[in-house]
């Protein structure tokens, strides 16, 4: 499953893995803004932006081919609208839609592949995202796998009892059962957490601190993306 692979990637060791989550988020945002505001998206500009992401992926020691393949999840959507653009006779727009969305997805994957989600969420929190929301995100991610597995078990059980193709009421019953079980599980979790002194905040073992390497990465990454954007602006 996709997020299991990401989970493994994000526990790796490299220069990028070791950087502070906040710094990585800011550099990602600068890169995305630079990419989004580059118009028109020439093949040269696309190649330069792609080189920047590729450099980050290599620096993070992530599998380039595997990541490139996973970033392709945006292609069905982007491809459809690129097709619409082609039908409307706007070829450069079609190219720009596909390349921009694909490179953005690859950049986000690089962040997600070098930052475990708890650290990423904590970074977002200290960048100003409300704590209640980050808590919900953390619980969602924590139980995503658990509840999905339960859904899979239910499907298996239905198959074993000859329920190959469900009727509407059966499918609705399955969803309602899953809902009830999730709800009950949530109440159990909440009670257990309260009993263990949960006070509305996940504790990390070590508080993140900005080091000189983080500042260097921030200046380097953001500077490079900005420089690229400015260069493309004059080229265009």
């Amino acid at each position: 499953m996709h997020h299991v692979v990401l989970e493994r990637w994000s526990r790796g060791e490299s220069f990028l893995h070791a950087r502070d989550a906040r710094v990585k988020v800011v550099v990602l945002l600068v890169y995305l803004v630079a990419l989004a505001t580059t118009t028109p998206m020439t093949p040269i500009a696309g190649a330069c932006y792609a080189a920047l992401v590729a450099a980050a992926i290599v620096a993070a020691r992530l599998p380039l081919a595997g990541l490139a393949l996973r970033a392709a999840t945006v292609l069905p959507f982007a491809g459809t609208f690129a097709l619409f653009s082609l039908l409307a006779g706007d070829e450069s727009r079609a190219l720009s839609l596909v390349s921009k969305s694909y490179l953005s997805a690859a950049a986000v994957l690089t962040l997600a592949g070098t930052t475990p989600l708890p650290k990423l969420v904590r970074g977002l929190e200290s960048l100003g995202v409300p704590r209640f929301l980050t808590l919900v995100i953390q619980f969602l991610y924590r139980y995503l796998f658990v509840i999905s597995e339960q859904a899979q078990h239910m499907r298996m059980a239905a198959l074993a009892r000859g329920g190959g193709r469900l009727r509407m009421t059966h499918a609705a019953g399955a969803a309602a059962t899953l809902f009830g079980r999730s709800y009950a599980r949530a109440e159990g979790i909440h009670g257990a957490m309260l009993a263990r002194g949960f006070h509305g905040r996940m504790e990390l073992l070590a508080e993140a601190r900005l080091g000189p390497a983080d500042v260097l990465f921030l200046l380097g990454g953001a500077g490079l993306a900005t420089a690229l954007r400015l260069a493309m602006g004059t080229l265009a």
Partner: protein
Amino acid sequence: MLPWDSVHIPDGFLSTPVWLALDVTGLPAVALLARRARRELEEARAPLLGVMGAFVFAAQMINFPVAAGTSAHLVGGALLAITLGPAAAAVVMTAILAVQAFVFQDGGILALGANVFNMGIAGVLAAWLPYHLWGAGRHRRTAIFAAGALSVVVSALLAVSELLASAVPVRPAALAFLLVVFGVSAAVEGVITVAVVRGIERLSPRIVHNATPERSWGLAVCGAGAVLLAAAGGLVASTNPDALQWLGGQLDILGRVTTLFAAPLAEYRARWLGSPWTSKAAAGTAGALLVGLICIALGRAATRPRSA
């Protein structure tokens, strides 16, 4: 499988004024709703909301049979609004969209504000509106169907009008195709939502009893605002005037209405397009803020007599 029942806009699709305006307005709105949800749910019920988000992910693995051998899955915005209340549902939807954007590359990061606005805020409020108005009465089932259908239609229409406002070229025929797809997805989501809510009522009546939260007129008014905004999105679609004119030509009755709206808008658009994007962004933000303020003001006015 239908092409999309929910439109997650990736990065690189929206023009800068559009994503900037929606990030600036959508994300603080969620922060506001998060505070409200926290109040409504008494204690910090973050675990419940998180697990419900995980449930929506998992429920998408259940295939619901649709006519002619195809199947669809639950989108879930309306179900969350009905079971958790609108503020909590908006928070859960935002968390889902954030995880989808960061972990699954389903929807962009810069476009997160837009996606949160379409699905997490407008979609949830549009679902809340019919349920709030008619959910307790004789027409409960119709209200739940309308909730499911409206949540999908409103978020899809907003997404498409944002794409059109960003000058993504969509030919009239392609637009018509998209509208048909959205119409079908909306009906399917309505049917699925009715079936699942009935199932929940039978299996765990305790939850549904909990799940009929206090009636909030303020949020209902916001819901009406969301529906209106999506309708106005149709007008934004006239930044792509030939699409609207083509539709108008197809439906003769609409023809007159179209020219009525298209004439002033064409001039408006010309003035708009000439200006730099900063002023467009400012105009977009101002417009969204204005709608937000009107919603809040109306909501306050509507709730005051009840609390006094």
